[in-house]
């Protein structure tokens, strides 16, 4: 096969346009903080999250534990749910629990 004639390679991926986001600052202590718990709706997510929050309650002086449930594990959380979680919590935990 002769590859001497001018040929071109094409990048088939297209561009990605996105703002770079930074992680939220880490907290030094959970004491006095409101913990948001986002259940992604997998079968055993609630069990895993309940066990986790039990340990956190035992070891820390939490101000509140707020529980949220997604409509389905393969759906993104709604903008309303994300806004509510962000407004009413200092730290958020989520889990798959398959």
């Amino acid at each position, binding site marked *: *096969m002769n590859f001497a004639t001018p*040929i*071109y390679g094409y*990048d088939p991926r297209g*561009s*990605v346009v996105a703002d770079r986001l930074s992680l939220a600052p880490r907290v030094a202590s959970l004491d006095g903080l409101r913990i948001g718990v986002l259940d992604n709706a997998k079968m055993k997510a609630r069990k895993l999250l309940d066990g986790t929050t039990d340990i956190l309650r035992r070891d820390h002086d939490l101000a509140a534990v707020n529980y949220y449930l997604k409509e389905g594990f*393969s759906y993104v959380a709604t903008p309303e749910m994300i806004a509510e979680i962000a407004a009413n919590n200092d730290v958020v935990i989520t889990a798959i629990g398959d």
Partner: protein
Amino acid sequence: MPNDLAVDHRPDDLPPDMTSISGVDPQEWYAERGYTDGLPIAPPTPETVAAVVTALGGDPDFQEGRVPPRWGVLSRRTLAINIVMAGCRPEYAPVVRAALKAMMEPHFNLNAIQATTHVVAPLTIVNGPIRNAIGMNAGHGAFGPGNRANATIGRAIRLVMLNVGGAQPGVLDKSTQGTPAKYTYCVAENEEESPWAPYHVEHGYRETASTVFVIGAESNHNINSPLPNDPEGILNDVISTMTTVGHNNARASGHCTVVLSPEHARSIAAHGWTRHDVRCYLQMYATNKFGVLAHDHKYGKVYNRHLPRWYRRQLDSDIPIVPSPDNIHLFVVGGTAGRFSSFIPGWGHYNNPVLRAIDGELPTGHGPICVDGTCYL
């Protein structure tokens, strides 16, 4: 401007997505960069890319959408590059675009389909005059190899998902086992051999319209039903296949596809049954006991969050495969000989199928929709 291109020998006068690779085997160049589905591709040239852009309406920078989970921008030029690579003729391009635009509708949930551990792949079924205009196979072996339009339209869709959507297996596509349907998965309805109105007419489009139906789907599961010659007998064999418990509809509801062979469809229609009758029968009697789905609570008390809230959950409760006859999408595909049909499980309630005209036109919108003698207001 693309921000993550592999640029090695690119002169200044080339577009940013082009590189001079003279003297290099193009198959090796594309394969080394992970730009293929593992099979050799048709290397694009300025002429072939331009021909497809023209078939898409020109304006190569026009953005048709963004493809998750990478959220790459699908410009007509990028789409054309993938269409050429798949081996399509330019006249297939509007079908590829229509299918992708349908899949990019938010309720199709392509983001999750691309990333899930499940085997789901988008299935495209084409209706209307364009099937014959571009030579699609709706007959013998329609789901299999041998027809350029079927094979390369489905392949182009997959290449866009891989390249623009970034769904590389094990990277952003976490499918545990994958499926051959992820190479290509596109057929046409055999309207000519069907005793019923075509799918798109059932859903309000004119017969002269050409449409794509897309759904998140498993591979097709065979229904070998050689003896029955009446609706109940054939459809009971369909139900037997539908009620296996390992697919997502059984455990997570949603939508599914039933593809009858022409022989089966004609036997059913000969008894006066309409498409609507078939879908209602299947929905009513394709059920599993909740206890079977819950393993009789052997592994702990099961509620099953993935099923509709209104379902009863006693062990002897009947759990429908899908919650409504409208969630069964019925097509006639296949050759004129053979009593083999298919059940194609969906992906559960996380995916909603989309029907879209290839030219973007809406359904007729003129009065009631009448199919096989039944009118819906």
